[in-house]
C-alpha cells in the first residue's frame, strides 16, 4: 500500500513539464491533485517511472470565461471551481454536479482536469463535459490540439491522451439564455462512486440531451426531440443499448431501471427550469 519508486519532477514552467513528459514517454504520468492517481499508485495499479507535478505552473491555475465558453486550467482544483463566483451563472450543470464529486476533503485537492484525465466511467465531471459538448486541450512538446469530449473518452479509464502529452485545460460551453440543466445521481452513500449519474441539458426549442454515466465504459448521450410523447420508449431503448453489467455495487437490471427513471426525472427537471 505504498507507491513503487518513481522519479519526481516539480515543474514550474510549462516547457519543463513538456520536456519531462517527452523524455519519460509512456513511463511518465502527470500528477496534479493526485486524488485519483495516488490511490492507483498506493495500490500499485499504476507504476509510472516518472511523475511530473504540474501544480506549480502558474498559468494552469486559471479559470477563464471568454466568449461562449469557460476554460479551466489543468491545476484548477475542484474546490476552486466550486467557489468561482460565476459558476451558477455560467455553468449551472457543473455547479449541480460538483457536490457529488467525491467528498469535500477530496475536492480540496482534486483537479477538474485530473478527473477528466482519469476517465472513470462513473465520474461526474467527464459526464458534464460530454453532456455540454465541451472539449479538451492537449499539449506536447511538438503541438497543441483540441479534442471534442466525445472523442476524448475512448473507454474505461482510457482516453485519447498520447505519450508525451498533457491536458492543459478543458472548456465547457457556458449557459445560454433559455436553456435548462439538471443533475441527479444514485450512489450507496453520498460521495461514493455513482451507480448511475444523469446530466440533462434542455434548449429553448424544447429539444434536450441526456448524458448517463456509471453504466457504459464512457458517458453516453441521448438526443431528444421537442416532442417527448414517446420519451419512455426512447429511454428504455437507450437503457438497453448501454449494455450494463452486473457488478459488486448493482445489477445490470437495476442500472437499466435507474436510467429509465432517473433519466426521465432529470430530463423533466432540465426542461422545467429553462430560463
Amino acid at each position, binding site marked *: *500500500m*505504498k*507507491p*513503487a*519508486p*518513481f*522519479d*519526481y*519532477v*516539480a*515543474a*514550474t*514552467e510549462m516547457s*519543463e513539464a513538456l520536456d*519531462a513528459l517527452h523524455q519519460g514517454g509512456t513511463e511518465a504520468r502527470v*500528477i496534479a491533485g*493526485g*486524488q485519483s492517481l*495516488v*490511490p492507483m*499508485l*498506493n*495500490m500499485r495499479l499504476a507504476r509510472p*517511472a516518472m*511523475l511530473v*507535478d504540474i*501544480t506549480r505552473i502558474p498559468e494552469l491555475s486559471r479559470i477563464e470565461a471568454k466568449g461562449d465558453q469557460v476554460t479551466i486550467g489543468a491545476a484548477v482544483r475542484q*474546490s476552486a471551481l466550486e467557489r468561482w463566483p460565476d459558476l451558477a451563472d455560467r455553468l449551472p450543470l457543473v455547479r449541480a454536479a460538483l*457536490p457529488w464529486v*467525491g*467528498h*469535500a*476533503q*477530496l475536492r*480540496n*485537492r482534486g483537479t477538474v482536469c485530473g478527473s477528466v484525465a482519469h476517465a472513470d466511467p462513473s465520474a461526474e465531471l467527464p459526464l458534464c463535459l460530454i453532456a455540454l459538448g465541451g472539449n479538451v486541450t492537449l499539449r506536447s512538446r511538438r503541438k497543441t490540439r483540441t479534442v471534442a469530449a466525445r472523442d476524448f473518452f475512448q473507454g474505461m479509464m482510457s482516453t485519447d491522451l498520447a505519450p508525451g502529452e498533457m491536458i492543459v485545460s478543458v472548456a465547457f460551453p457556458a449557459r445560454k439564455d433559455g436553456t435548462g440543466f439538471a443533475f441527479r445521481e444514485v450512489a450507496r*452513500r*453520498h*460521495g461514493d462512486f455513482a451507480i448511475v449519474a444523469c446530466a440533462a441539458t434542455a434548449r429553448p426549442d424544447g429539444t434536450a440531451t441526456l448524458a448517463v454515466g456509471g453504466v457504459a465504459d464512457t458517458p453516453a448521450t441521448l438526443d431528444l426531440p421537442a416532442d417527448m410523447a414517446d420519451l419512455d420508449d426512447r429511454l428504455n431503448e437507450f437503457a438497453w443499448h448501454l449494455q450494463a453489467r452486473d457488478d459488486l455495487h448493482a445489477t445490470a437490471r437495476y442500472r437499466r431501471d435507474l436510467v429509465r427513471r432517473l433519466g426521465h426525472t432529470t430530463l423533466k427537471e432540465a426542461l422545467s427550469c429553462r430560463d
Partner: protein
Amino acid sequence: MPRLTKDDVQPVGFKLNGRPVVVRVTPRTLLTDALRHEIGATGTHVGCEHGVCGACTVQVDGEPARACLMLAHQADGCDIRTVEGLAQGDALTPLQEAFRAHFALQCGFCTAGILMTLDALFSRQPDADEDAIREALSGHLCRCTGYAPIVQAALTARNRIKGGPIDA
C-alpha cells in the same frame, strides 16, 4: 526546477502546526508517512491509504485533505495542521471537549481526521447547520459510534464557538 530521481532523499520544508519543519524523504514518501515516521507526529492515523476512510485527514493551507493522497514533496511550502495542533497543552479546544462530553469516540482511530475536518468547517462556516456537518462527516468512516454522538458533539461545539447556548 526540482528534479529528483527515485532514490534521492531530499529536504521538504513546510509548516507543521505553526512551526517550520524539514523532512528528508524520497519522492514516493506519502505525507502520512513523513508526518508519522520522520517527525513522529503519530496523531494522524493511517487507515485505508486510498482516500476512502478519512482517518489521515489533515489541514493543508486551512482546508481538510487526505494526507495519504499527498506526496510529502507536494507539501513543500504548505501550512499543514494536524490534530497535535488543536489542544494547547492540557487545554482542549471546544470541539475536543464536546467530543469527550458526548462520547463521540470509542476506539479513537477516526477521531483525529474528523476533528481536522470539523475544525476547518467551523473556521470557514461558524454557523454550519446539521446538514453541513453531516455532509462534512460523510468523508469519514467511524465503525464505533454510529455517528449520532459525533453529530451531537459537533453541534455542541458549534454553539460554544458561536457563543450561543451550549446544548444542541
